[in-house]
């Protein structure tokens, strides 16, 4: 039997994805398109929030949505019916997250002409999507009141990679032991730069602040 030969590799398994992500960001910059990676647990209200925000912004900028799920196309259809904008469904084939390559494949199916903003609605999950850079310009996440204000402590990585934390379902605050002040404090422990915006996607309360944040982000991305 041949003697064992050892080949040194010494390479992070995330290295290729990080490179792909940086390249994708640069290409988006050249095209003047801002990509937002939106993450949250299942059922926190990503799609409902998106519909509200899109309806506030669609006359001002060109928007498209990529919905990522393990299966089904209910979200993509819902967005298209409620807003009329371009909306495509990505299937992750059982995977719990999207990486930069999958995001690129998704973008290849989006007609970028006239677009300023593409929102990637990631798979509902607070763990895995935070590990993989999708190539988006920014990460945002939605935490809903029933999930509890301690989530930034339990899922630290998710909150440390997000620049915007939307606290959704504030209409049910009276029925839950959710402390908004504590939540904000915990978010800032993980990322001092993160902005926290409380909203109710169902009634539309506070949603205009999310729309403003996005509009400023898109403008800065194009001008910088």
């Amino acid at each position, binding site marked *: 039997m041949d003697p064992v030969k050892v080949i040194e*590799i010494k390479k992070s*398994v995330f290295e290729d994805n990080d490179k792909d992500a940086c390249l994708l960001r640069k290409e988006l910059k050249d095209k003047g398109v801002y990509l937002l990676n939106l993450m949250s647990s299942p059922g926190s209200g990503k799609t409902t929030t998106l519909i509200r925000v899109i309806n506030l912004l669609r006359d001002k900028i060109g928007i498209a949505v990529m919905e990522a799920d393990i299966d089904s196309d209910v979200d993509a259809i819902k967005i298209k019916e409620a807003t009329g904008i371009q909306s495509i469904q990505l299937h992750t084939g059982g995977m719990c997250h999207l990486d930069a390559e999958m995001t690129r494949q998704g973008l290849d199916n989006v007609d970028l002409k006239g677009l300023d903003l593409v929102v990637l609605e990631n798979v509902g999950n607070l763990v895995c999507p935070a590990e993989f850079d999708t190539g988006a310009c920014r990460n945002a996440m939605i935490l809903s009141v029933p999930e509890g204000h301690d989530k930034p402590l339990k899922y630290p990585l998710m909150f440390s990679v997000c620049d915007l934390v939307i606290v959704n379902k504030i209409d049910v605050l009276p029925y839950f032991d959710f402390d908004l002040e504590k939540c904000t404090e915990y978010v800032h422990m993980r990322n001092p730069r993160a902005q926290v915006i409380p909203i109710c996607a169902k009634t539309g309360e506070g949603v205009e602040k999310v729309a403003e944040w996005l509009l400023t982000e898109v403008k800065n991305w194009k001008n910088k």
Partner: protein
Amino acid sequence: MHELGIVFYIIRDVKKAAEENGVEHVNAVVMNIGEVSTIVPDYLMDCWRWAADKEDLLRGCELRFNILPAVTFCEDCHQEYPTVEHGRTCPYCGSEKTYLLKGNEVEIKEIEV
């Protein structure tokens, strides 16, 4: 839960390295995995067996790993301490202004051919 995705990354990288070195079969892959990398070694092994055996290059290939200790640094008292035991709060001065120095590695160290 993301172990399967990571296994696909490992396979891609090992295939590339094997190709560059003209290797026809890999006997073992050795990983460096940080204590707080969020990887569950048992899950990684299960996913590895399932995915690796589908590749000629990796059929029967063993996956081994070194677990690297996690160390956190305190910005207030400038001391280092073991992360898993004490978390984000410095055991020396109680400060929460701390950051991880090492321990989240997910790295392919070497392959045996």
